[in-house]
């Protein structure tokens, strides 16, 4: 304990008396923090934009067409699949999901959205936050992502017009907003939900598809009686329902086109930034220790133990790193206030906390070589013999 107090005394005195030098390093760490936190937020934002709807599904399993490689866009299920899935033992409920894209043209700036068809009250249809769910049949009603409604100044009861390419012609459909759901973006686009029959009518489709009025779901979201039984239920579903393959939510997210590659890229950037941080901090403290060799020699010669010298270096690194991360975190927060909502930055608590912990660790890790070097300095360096 005595060593700790002595080491703290030396470390703090040195930082206070060399404010400029240590502040400079703290600012470098702050910039690295800013970069790492933004990369983490960008990663979360991009991931959200891609997976949010699937991640928030009230389901544990997703049924795809066999050999579709768990690709939502490549999967097109038979209309009876949903009923077959519901009949399997252990399935609490199942809901078909129909995916497509369209554009709201009635806004001052046209807005591309994911057009999702779902059954009200079934898995695949998110809980309504405001208003009500759409009616069945071909009701021209839509439930909208609340963020889009806020940004576009839309309210329940407002009408929107969408453009849809039917064959070779552009057609326009009016929909009434009847309800709002929480952030549900899918494939980097906000979402609007419509009944299956409406979806089939208004989705963009080719000339050949126009002849059919039957909507084919891309996937079926399956809610289990026992959510822990995903593996066993996957096997059972494949066994009982023909021409399907089944994935859990995590697998479904990872097979969203580009998701894994995008997250891998963002994470690699984050890791490299942390590595640069380690090198910068390690370099600074190594140079500093090299400059302090005679001084450390004197400290040891007059009776300071290795524990005092080593701990002092560790405490100094921790103080400077914590200061840098604190400044960087504050800068990140202030910058984030000024960013437009179109930039996909999401400061997720867990991800940001993990990044902050890693940033706090890079200081001691980067300075490890200099700490070992400091401990090994011979007190003879204080004399001319060293």
């Amino acid at each position, binding site marked *: 304990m*005595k060593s700790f107090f*002595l080491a703290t*005394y*030396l470390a703090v*005195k*040195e930082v*206070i*008396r*060399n404010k400029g030098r240590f502040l400079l390093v703290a600012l470098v760490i702050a910039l690295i923090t800013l970069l790492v936190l933004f990369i983490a937020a960008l990663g979360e934002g991009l991931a959200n934009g891609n997976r949010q709807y699937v991640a928030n599904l009230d389901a544990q399993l997703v049924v795809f067409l066999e050999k579709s490689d768990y690709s939502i866009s490549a999967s097109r299920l038979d209309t009876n699949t949903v009923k077959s899935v519901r009949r399997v033992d252990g399935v609490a409920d199942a809901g078909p999901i129909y995916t497509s894209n369209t554009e709201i043209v009635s806004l001052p700036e046209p807005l591309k959205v994911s057009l999702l068809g779902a059954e009200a009250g079934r898995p695949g249809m998110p809980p309504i936050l405001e208003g009500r769910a759409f009616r069945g049949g071909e009701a021209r009603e839509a439930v909208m992502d609340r963020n889009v409604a806020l940004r576009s100044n839309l309210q329940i009861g407002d009408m929107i017009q969408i453009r849809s390419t039917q064959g070779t012609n552009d057609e326009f459909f009016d929909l009434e907003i009847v309800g709002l759901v929480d952030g549900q973006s899918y494939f980097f686009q906000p979402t609007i939900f419509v009944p299956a029959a409406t979806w089939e009518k208004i989705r963009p489709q080719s000339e050949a598809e126009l002849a059919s009025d039957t909507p084919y779901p891309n996937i079926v979201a399956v809610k289990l009686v026992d959510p822990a039984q995903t593996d066993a239920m996957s096997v059972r579903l494949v066994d009982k329902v023909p021409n399907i393959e089944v994935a859990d939510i995590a697998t479904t997210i990872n097979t969203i086109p580009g998701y894994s590659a995008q997250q891998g890229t963002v994470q690699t950037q984050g890791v490299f930034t942390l590595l640069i941080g380690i090198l910068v901090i390690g370099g600074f403290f190594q140079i500093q220790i090299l400059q302090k060799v*005679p*001084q450390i*020699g*004197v*400290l*040891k*010669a*007059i*009776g*300071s*133990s290795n524990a005092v010298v080593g701990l002092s270096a560790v405490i100094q690194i921790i103080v400077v790193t914590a200061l840098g991360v604190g400044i960087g975190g504050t800068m990140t927060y202030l910058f984030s206030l000024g960013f437009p909502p179109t930039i996909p930055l999401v400061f997720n608590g867990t991800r940001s906390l993990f990044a902050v912990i890693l940033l706090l660790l890079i200081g001691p890790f980067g300075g490890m070589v200099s700490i070992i070097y400091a401990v090994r300095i*011979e*007190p*003879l360096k*204080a*004399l*001319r*013999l060293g």
Partner: protein
Amino acid sequence: MSNIALEVRDLVKTFDLDGTTINAVDDVSFQVRSGEFVALVGPSGSGKTTMLSILAALLTPTSGRVLIDGEDLAQMNEKRRVKLRREKIGFTFQSNNLIPYLTARENVEFMLRLNNTLDRTGRVRSDELLARLGLSDRLHNLPAQMSGGQQQRVAIARALIHNPAVVLADEPTASLDTERAFQVVETFAHLIHEKERAGIMVTHDLRMCQYVDRVLQMQDGKLVREYKSRKEIRELALGVLEH
């Protein structure tokens, strides 16, 4: 008669340099009593600094014994040696003497902190000692804000504040001009005598010997001559005696 603070018996230190054995210290014996100030002189490579390093428990001798305040260095592990340096030895070095980010007062008090004896009395003693050394207006100055002479005086205060048995000074005047060098050594000698500590100063500047009680002359690792009488020491310091 005051007690023996430092005793060196049959001390040998050899270094192996590219297969050749160098006798840096060769069968040296001497004693220093409390309140006695001794100079260790000799040409470059005579073994003075090696001797000082062994006395400071920084270097292990090849053979022989060193007793500081009755404690045998040969019987100590590294942890005990660190404790001995902290409690029983005071140091001043040639340069880089002070901790650059501590003020004069903090540098002196640091020895008390190390020994866990810093209290109100210790603080008062520290300020008094610095005042005795003419530094009462420099208490809050960092080393970089003081002259070389002032820094050496702070180092002397630090070497004495914890009442060590032995005070070792390695070329304390090397970086000072002549006038300041005389002032520093005179003050040093005065405090050694007053506080009844055993002082050993390694120096190549024989003029500084006029303030010591005894001069030990080394050559090729051996103790070749001892100057005891005031007359001999004065003549050595004035350059009348050839050493």
